[in-house]
């Protein structure tokens, strides 16, 4: 009885000491973890995996439907019979529905990728997302009308409605792609700044390394300046006379200059690190 009562406090105090020690060690481990540089998960916008296969499938289906429509239309123009008219009407409906589905998938993918792209001014981003939403809403209405359309007059009218919105559809798509690319370039610059400073912290502080880091910083600044100039020019441009496709290509050419500097800086960082 006496031995038991003398062992119990020792056991209790041992448990107490062990628990305190483990607590102290765990706190130190947490502190070290929080102090170590964290690596953010990759935030590269990619097409939504669940929609993308459906989009590709729709594209394939559309090619077939469009080809069948063209053949049916050719036959109708040659024969001019009611049967040929009925055939081409059905083929037109199928092709238009598939075309609508493709556009719907495309703008959903674009919206998904754009919303996940950093480096874009929030107001501009929301404005562009609203434009995409408007297009998606239009396509939804168009799909509902196509589903109930039966006659060739109705289908022709709906075809004309979409044709009338072609410019708006393409403008929104190209605008989004331009802004998305600018956002990606800005994100690259932000990451270059962060990584280059971390690499510089880890290298020996020699005059040569100091000059290398100064050159890296200078090149990043130049790239950012060029990017901002292109963005400002884009936002100021309201009435583009050229087609949207040409405008898109023009901006991609302009963005090539800051991109070359970004690539150059990446190589500089690799060199500094080695």
């Amino acid at each position, binding site marked *: 009885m*006496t031995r038991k*009562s*003398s062992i119990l*406090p*020792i056991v*209790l*105090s041992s448990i*107490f000491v062990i628990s*305190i020690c483990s*607590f*102290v060690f765990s*706190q*130190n481990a947490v502190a070290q973890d929080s*102090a*170590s540089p964290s*690596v*953010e998960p*990759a935030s*590269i916008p990619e097409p939504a995996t669940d929609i993308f296969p459906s989009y590709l499938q729709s*594209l394939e289906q*559309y090619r077939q439907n*469009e080809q069948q*429509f063209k053949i049916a239309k050719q036959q*109708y123009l040659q024969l001019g019979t009611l049967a040929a*008219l009925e055939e081409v*009407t059905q083929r*037109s409906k199928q092709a238009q529905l598939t*075309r609508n589905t*493709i556009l719907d998938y*495309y703008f959903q*993918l*674009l919206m998904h*990728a754009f919303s996940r792209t950093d480096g874009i001014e929030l107001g501009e981003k929301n404005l562009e997302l609203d434009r995409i939403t408007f297009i998606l809403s239009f396509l939804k209405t168009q799909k509902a009308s196509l589903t109930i359309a039966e006659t*060739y007059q109705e*289908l*022709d009218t709906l*075809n004309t409605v979409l044709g009338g919105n*072609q410019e708006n559809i*393409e403008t929104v798509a*190209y605008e989004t*792609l331009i802004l998305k*690319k600018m956002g*990606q*370039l800005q*994100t*690259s610059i932000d*990451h*270059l700044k962060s*990584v280059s400073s*971390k690499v510089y912290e*880890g290298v020996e502080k020699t005059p040569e390394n100091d000059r290398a880091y100064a050159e890296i910083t200078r090149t990043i600044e130049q790239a950012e300046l060029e990017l901002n100039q292109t963005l400002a020019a884009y936002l100021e441009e309201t009435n583009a006379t050229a087609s949207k496709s040409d405008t898109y290509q023009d901006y*991609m*050419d302009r*963005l090539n200059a800051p*991109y070359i500097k*970004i*690539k150059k800086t*990446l190589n500089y*960082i*690799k060199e500094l690190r080695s």
Partner: protein
Amino acid sequence: MKNQLKNTRIDQTSFQDEMSIMRQSQGEKVERENTVQFVNKSNLPRTALLMLLIVGLISAAVVFFTKGNTTEPVLPIPSATPQVINQQESDIEKQMKLLETIVEEADPSNNNLPLPPISYDLSISKTE
């Protein structure tokens, strides 16, 4: 026998003496040990509690001085161990790979979402 027992000084807390009493009561002759250690029963829990209190105070002091200002993050020790250095290298390596991917994605000639190749003219009555 009874007188012998009466004259014997017995420590009630000693297990050995309790056994001796039993054996003596059964008629055995038991030689008494001269060195009998007396332990005060009432002091035992106090000693244990005192020990526990001291250990607790030392542990609390260790925790207090180890944690220091709890609001400030603990910075890594400059003379970091090789594991910590390797961890930092590994993190920079990951960041470099992520940076390379981001830069590749930002290439203006790289467009992973081109406009779909569709015709806007699917009119039936309109002749070319």
